[in-house]
């Protein structure tokens, strides 16, 4: 898809968001949609790692929580204006993830998944215990200032505004990712993912680009967390638990990891479906577990992938995650 077309579609999506905002009168529905969009951004982060590097991370909740805690601590200590803090946190996450990435992207397949699981759990345990810094298991309240980027808090925290902010960020992030992945950088990481050995034999050093993708995915996840922090005003160790990473992975796989749309679809389905289930909501995890199994067995590139193939008139093929 050309840059112009991507840009046009993005503008259209923004318009769509505005329409949704206008027409949805129920604030609880808007709240739920905002939640869905935040998860969608988180899922985009996990998804881009899977798509470009072919790596499955069970520990991305680390960056999700870290951004929130970072924000909470900085605001509590009143080190700098919130606007600057946002920028700094995202940058810090990027750098940290890049350094971590340099070490861990060399680890292949399942071992990488286990590694991210271990790192994530370790940070989770640290957060539960460091009562002084993080408030321990009770979590941390995030005291946003009276105005953010010039807008008063009261206006920002209205459901409609929050939704529009989240939606716009999602469209922006998607656009940036799509653009980045069309560049040479995207080609390099795809080559590494497809055939690491041959990539080296055409002159590509394989660690740096993959660490960069890892850092990118971490930053996207961090963005999602900052939005979540704005939405709820709160962050807790539960945000860091491995089950959060695993569930997001679920969204990505069910939605489809090969396109930017997949994780978004997966996240929206997850949040809305839970509400839809009503009485059966307690069984939602089992249903998603079953959906995950069905998708992996019959349509590994997810719902979006399946739909794409249907539209192209092809029969479903058994292709694997790699």
């Amino acid at each position, binding site marked *: 898809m050309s840059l112009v077309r991507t840009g046009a579609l993005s503008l259209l999506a923004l318009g769509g968001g505005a329409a949704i905002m206008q027409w949805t009168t129920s604030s609880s529905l808007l709240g739920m949609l905002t939640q869905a969009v935040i998860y969608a951004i988180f899922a985009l982060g996990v998804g881009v790692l899977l798509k470009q590097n072919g790596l499955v991370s069970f520990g991305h909740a680390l960056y999700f929580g870290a951004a929130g805690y970072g924000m909470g601590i900085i605001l509590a200590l009143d080190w700098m204006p919130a606007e600057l803090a946002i920028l700094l946190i995202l940058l810090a996450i990027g750098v940290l993830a890049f350094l971590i990435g340099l070490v861990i992207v060399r680890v292949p397949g399942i071992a990488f998944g286990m590694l991210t699981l271990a790192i994530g759990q370790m940070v989770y345990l640290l957060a539960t215990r460091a009562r002084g810094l993080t408030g321990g298991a009770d979590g941390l309240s995030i005291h946003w200032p009276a105005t953010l980027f010039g807008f008063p808090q009261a206006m920002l925290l209205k459901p409609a505004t929050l939704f529009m902010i989240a939606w716009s960020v999602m469209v922006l992030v998607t656009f940036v990712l799509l653009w980045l992945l069309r560049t*040479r950088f995207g*080609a*390099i990481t*795809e*080559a590494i*993912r*497809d*055939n690491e*050995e*041959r*990539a*080296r*034999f*055409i*002159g*590509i*050093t394989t660690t740096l680009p993959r660490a960069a993708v890892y850092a990118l995915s971490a930053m996207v996840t961090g963005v999602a967390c900052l939005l979540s922090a704005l939405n709820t005003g709160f962050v807790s160790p539960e945000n860091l638990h491995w089950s959060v990473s695993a569930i997001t992975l679920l969204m990505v796989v069910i939605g489809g990891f090969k396109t930017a749309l997949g994780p978004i679809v997966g996240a929206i389905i997850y949040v809305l479906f839970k509400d839809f289930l009503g009485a059966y909501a307690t069984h939602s995890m089992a249903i998603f577990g079953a959906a995950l199994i069905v998708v992996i067995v019959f349509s590994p590139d997810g719902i979006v992938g399946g739909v794409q193939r249907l539209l192209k008139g092809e029969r479903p093929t058994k292709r694997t995650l790699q």
Partner: protein
Amino acid sequence: MNSYVLQAQDLAVHYGGVKALDGVGITLEKGQIHGLIGPNGAGKSTVIDAITGRRKLTRGTVLLDGEDVSHMGAVERRMRGLSRSFQRTSIFGGMAVRRQVELASYKMGVADSAGDAGAVLKELDLDRLGQTIAEDLGYGEQRRLDLALALVGRPKLLMLDEPMAGLSVQESQDLARHLKALTARWEVSVLLVEHDMDVVFGISDVVTVFELGRVIASGEPASVRANPRVREAYLGSAA
């Protein structure tokens, strides 16, 4: 003094009790096509692996234009103009043909990578398939893509590991002609491992014969062909 583009000396590759290569030497001059033949398991692929850095050397040195690259990784050797194709097709399945060939060219530092890629694709009859995803190509087309990835970027030295494997007689002959033309035009030196004797003896300037990890004959095609030791290695008895 050293006019060789490639000088491999006393190469040995031992692993797990197997001596895949046991003291082998090969030289290549500029613009030369050097054919490498021998029975299966003789060590032909291994010598390419050793020269390109895919396998670790137990012993020996590899000199590229006089520079010792024996301890360098594959990436560094490629950047010095050493390029190779693979016996078992090794391409980027999820990427479009043109995109990956251009990438390979770009990585070699070619200023006009699009043009370079285009030329190579045209030379190998892949230009009409530029937008096709690699894994959707036919077998022969994939073999040519594997070759294209090695050819872009104006390499100095090309190691081809059974490029004709699985190709029809016609396709093999076409490919042989392409190779001869390309090497003449770009002054690329080629080490060609092949089973097809006609092809090898047809286009090579020099032929070396391997058996059990050692060189048993080397020289001009005609004399190698007539060598009784070579005939014995292939036919199992003095023929």
